[in-house]
């Protein structure tokens, strides 16, 4: 059947069988291979994408369900040639080793920061608990997500806040 899915801001009209999973629409039909497929059983979370801003496992959603909805994949995080703050933070805090879980971790992290700009370590760990890192690099993933939150808050608050220390601030700025 014919569906139109807005993927990373661009409307894409495609003809798919109803049984095609969203993960396969993205990877095999649209060529967006940043969305990975790991366990294919709703466990590992590496296929996570955002549908209307909400993280979902794209191996457990049919592409037809995304008709007329907005999907964001890791390829859509960059804006105007600039890395998204969460991408910068993953790079700077060494938030990846093999990189297989990274697209999903960044999308889940960015969705968390939209709802909660200043999450505690516990809140970050809770938010990523449906996503596995087989390198077990969780320490730096958590650091990177919190760092991105800090950078995004600093950007919003303007130049006065530029001197935010790299370490966690003693009194984190209130969530806006």
């Amino acid at each position: 059947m014919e569906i139109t899915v807005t993927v990373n801001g661009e409307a894409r009209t495609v003809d798919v069988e109803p049984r095609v999973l969203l993960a396969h629409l993205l990877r095999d039909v649209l060529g967006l291979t940043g969305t990975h497929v790991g366990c294919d059983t709703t466990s590992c979370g590496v296929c996570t994408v955002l549908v209307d801003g909400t993280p979902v496992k794209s191996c457990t959603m049919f592409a037809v369900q995304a008709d007329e909805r907005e999907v964001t994949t890791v390829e859509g995080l960059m804006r105007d040639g600039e890395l998204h703050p969460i991408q910068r933070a993953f790079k700077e805090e060494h938030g990846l080793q093999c990189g297989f879980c990274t697209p999903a971790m960044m999308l889940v992290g960015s969705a968390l920061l939209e709802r909660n700009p200043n999450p505690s370590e516990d809140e970050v760990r809770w938010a990523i608990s449906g996503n596995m890192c087989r390198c077990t690099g969780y320490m730096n993933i958590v650091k990177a997500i919190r760092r991105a939150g800090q950078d995004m808050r600093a950007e919003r608050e303007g130049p006065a806040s530029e001197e935010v220390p790299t370490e966690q601030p003693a009194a984190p700025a209130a969530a806006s």
Partner: protein
Amino acid sequence: MYSAPFEYAAPTTLEEALSLLEEHGEDARVLAGGQSLIPLMKLRFATPALLIDINRIPDLDYVEESADDLLIGPLARNNALADSAALKERYPTMAAAAPLISDPVVRNLGTLAGSLAHADPAGDWGSVMLSLGARVAVTGPSGEREIPVAELFQGPFTTALEPTEVITEVRVPKPSDRSGGTYLKLERKVGDFATVGAAVSLELDDGHVGRAGIGLTALGPQNLHAKTAEEALAGAEPGEEAFDEAARLAADAAEPVSDLRGSADYKRETARVFVRRGLAAAHETATAT
């Protein structure tokens, strides 16, 4: 993994969904969150000829209170329940369970009504609903009827729903002011099915136990309703003695099997400990002012 081929319909009204269901009966399945149904379809344990996606029907995602009940729409997601202020304030058994359902990403899509319709004996919501004496409203060709959750489960993945019926609301009786409850779940890791789960709800009546509700997860061919333990508690003096006895009766009612998650003996003992702890915690909440 690809499921078997199927036709897909995305009706925008409940009437349309019901008429499709009436037309296709057992060949059709209703898709809500899909977090259990889609994996089953991928494994080809479920091979519906028609998938009726109800996600385009507006206004089915509510969580609201009437004078007597908490009313949950068939598209209320598990994370909406986990975030609900009403649950945190008045439905402690549900508030304890909601954040333990699968994992945070799956909870963005999964629903309570879908979990009940799926009737997995290792599903968490079934036990919670049994402990709270909840009912489901189901709608079919001849209109709406109510089924107590205690009569809904008929066996593994089997419910009292007719093939032409769909759960249109979950109704949870509002507990009294002197009530408490919790859900305890042993799982190997976040997102795994329960090795053992126990839902406990307790209402006090003039210093004695009024209503007690106990549901057990992954301890039999369906979510188990520990009726003998509930009956022993009703009217009893709340305290260690009554709770120990109820826990023993609930563990006796369990029908665990040994599998990769643990031996039958281990699961039965865990059930006993969970029911005792759950009752103590529920009593503490009920007596706190």
